[in-house]
């Protein structure tokens, strides 16, 4: 499923003002997260409450394989259109000049979508298997997944430097050791 484009119901992020079902089933509104916590403390709300949030059926790209099927959730990124931008800005996306947006041209055979889209790298979500409405309608190719992974690490502020540095140092040490071994006179 890595790189698969599927349609799924994605929930919007809960945000203030919050609406949640109280213990008695009534819909309660809270202006801030602190008020919510106070309602849990004081009793009107359960610790795990039902929030009223919107959800939308939309295309997403899945980022993970689940070969064992023991984890029912997938990490994914939302696909977005960009018709509301002016033509010049739209072209910037098509030209790959926007690092936070991976352009997917209109190619229904490859992506299974009827229009051009862009993967929004700032839209990381978790999707439960049961929210998937379709099986994959298309796939990103290996090159696109490679680009996506590198840019996603940037967007998530994941610092790959220590791991890369360690790899370079280890390779460097291997080269030096091999060179020294070649130069050491055999007894």
């Amino acid at each position, binding site marked *: 499923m890595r790189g698969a484009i599927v349609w799924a119901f994605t929930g919007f992020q809960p945000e203030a003002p919050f609406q949640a079902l109280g213990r008695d089933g009534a819909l309660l509104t809270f202006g801030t997260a602190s008020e919510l916590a106070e309602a849990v403390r004081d009793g009107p709300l359960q610790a795990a409450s039902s929030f009223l949030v919107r959800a*939308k059926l939309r295309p997403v790209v899945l980022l993970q394989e689940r070969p064992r099927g023991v984890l029912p959730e997938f990490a994914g990124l939302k696909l977005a259109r960009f018709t*509301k931008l002016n033509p010049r800005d739209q072209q910037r996306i098509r030209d790959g000049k926007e690092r936070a947006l991976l352009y997917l041209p209109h190619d229904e055979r490859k992506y299974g*979508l009827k229009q051009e889209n862009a993967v929004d790298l*700032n839209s990381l979500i978790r999707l439960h298997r049961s929210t998937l409405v379709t099986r994959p309608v298309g796939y990103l190719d290996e090159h696109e997944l490679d680009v996506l992974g590198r840019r996603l690490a940037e967007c998530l502020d994941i610092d790959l430097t220590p791991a890369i540095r360690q790899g370079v140092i280890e390779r460097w040490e291997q080269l030096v050791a091999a060179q020294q071994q070649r130069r050491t006179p055999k007894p």
Partner: protein
Amino acid sequence: MHTRVVTANEVRIPEPGAGEVIVVERYGKPYAAVIDADMLELLKRLIAMFGEQPPAELSLSDVALQVHRNSEAGEDVEEFDFELLTTHPAA
């Protein structure tokens, strides 16, 4: 990385082979290294790619931000083709 260029006439160094690193040791420890031009380019690219990075939000463009906001609001999203319920039902 600051690069100081000296001409080959000014120094005498061993000739580095392709992919070879010549380590100059002093008191039994690496002191300096000579690498070939291809490896220098690789080193520069690695530094450019993996040097200190500012938070990504600082470099988020207005274009990317507008697309993100529209998308998060549920606007400007491709409409679902209900035929897919028949042609591509979820397993």
